[in-house]
């Protein structure tokens, strides 16, 4: 039942908002994964990031797409938790050390094991809209665990203008989404993180974005 709700939510509501209200300029669509397991690694500006990314992948993949999201934020009340877990389909990630000693990314590891497509924001949080933040190395942990899973860097611009942190009013702007070549684990954490960061920066360099301050 919630699977059907999730399907309708993404097939109708999200697509209408993304295609009609916002409008997407997608570059290198062919680099998007057509099956799992895979990790999408975009920069993070807005709550819309996840919704727009999911709507770019074919609907048949929807049951496989799982965004990783902060447990303390999205599970803070029952209604939001129901929506986040069942409709958006998040994998909750704890940002604080777990009492039971479980690894915070255990849910993500399991998802990749199942062959899911994981959306994982390496910046950790939305931060300042339209400003890239430093990457956290959790994603390297996943890549190391599953060296055969491709990590696909993505650069997104514009959604932070439409709906930045702390705002509830959506203002339409076209958003640009540039997909990079898949990366693989290279055997060393800091080298991998540097390559991912450089890949996202290179994608940003492909565009010509007006200033927004």
């Amino acid at each position, binding site marked *: 039942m919630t699977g059907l709700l999730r399907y309708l939510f993404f097939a109708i509501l999200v697509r209408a908002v993304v295609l009609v209200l916002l*409008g997407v*300029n997608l570059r290198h669509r062919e680099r998007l994964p057509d099956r799992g397991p895979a990790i999408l690694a975009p920069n993070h500006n807005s709550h819309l990031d996840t919704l727009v990314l999911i709507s770019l992948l074919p609907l048949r993949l929807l049951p496989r797409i799982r965004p990783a999201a902060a447990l303390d934020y999205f599970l803070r009340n029952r209604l939001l938790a129901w929506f986040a877990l069942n409709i958006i389909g998040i994998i909750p990630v704890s940002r604080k050390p777990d009492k039971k000693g479980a690894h915070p990314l255990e849910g993500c590891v399991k998802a990749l094991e199942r062959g899911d497509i994981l959306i994982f924001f390496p910046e950790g949080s939305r931060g300042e*809209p339209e400003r890239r933040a430093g990457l956290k190395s959790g994603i390297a942990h996943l890549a190391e665990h599953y060296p055969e899973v491709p990590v696909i860097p993505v650069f997104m611009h*514009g959604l932070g*203008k439409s709906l*930045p942190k702390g*705002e509830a*009013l959506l*203002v*339409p*702007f*076209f958003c640009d989404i540039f997909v990079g070549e898949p990366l693989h684990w290279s055997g060393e954490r800091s080298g991998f993180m540097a390559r991912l960061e450089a890949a996202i920066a290179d994608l940003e360099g492909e565009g*010509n974005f*007006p*200033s*927004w*301050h």
Partner: protein
Amino acid sequence: MREWAVKPQVMLAIGGVFLLLLLASFIVYLLGRRNPGKDYGELRQRVKSWWIMIILFSLGLLLSRKLSLVFFAFISFLALKEYLSLIPTRRADRRVLFWAYLTIPVQFYWIALGWYGMFIIFIPVYVFLFLPMRMVMIGETRDFLHAVGALHWGLMTTVFSLSHLSFLLVLPEANNPQAGGAGLVLFLVFLTEFNDVAQYVWGKLLGRHKIIPKVSPNKTWEGFLGGIATSMIAAYGLAPWLTPLSLEHSLAVGAILPAAGFIGDVVISAVKRDIGVKDSGSLLPGHGGILDRIDSLTYTAPLFFHFIRYFYY
């Protein structure tokens, strides 16, 4: 709203446009077969986008008047959104931009009412006075003049100017009994776009002398004058079918529209050059963005509207 009935002349004219489109597709097909080595990908995409645009435009124009207004309002929305995504904006102005978007349904509501007085002053007067006030209330003064000027120019171009096209639809049918408002819209849009193509083709065939190389290096006097001559012939042939224009007036309009369309085109080119982009967007493969397609219309629509309103309504 008065009742809506599509006049046979309008159907015929749309049929003619589709014939032209078939011809264009056939020529592209022949070119591809004659020179298999050459890449006609962009030309092919361009024609394909024309098919989609003209099918949508025909549906938007023919099904009902309400739908026509919604269709044109949506084009204004796309154009304004593309413009606001292209230019530098201030974070503080997010809410002001939201108000700017709201002017679109309001402006088209005046049109649906047929309230000319409000339609013609709403954006140039009321919105012009309101938006700076809204910006002042937010209180960010850095780049204020730039922000308020760029926003109003965008609204005048993408909403006010373009909406003249829609007001043609609500002018009294009796003054143009054979084709009505839809005939006027078709005449204006066809001539504007046909002239864009004609200027391009004449420029490719004969172009030597550049007009304004600093803004638009591909524009030549040969293309410009060839476009005017072609458009005058087309206007002369089409006006008796679709408009109440007399012979002299149809020739005058046939000369005014290509000149105005040219100016609209290079004005948007100057904006793109200022920003540092080649195309305004990527909505229409082979054409660029929506502003790249409607640039000429932002000049031809108000000029044609006031010409015909002054002499015939």
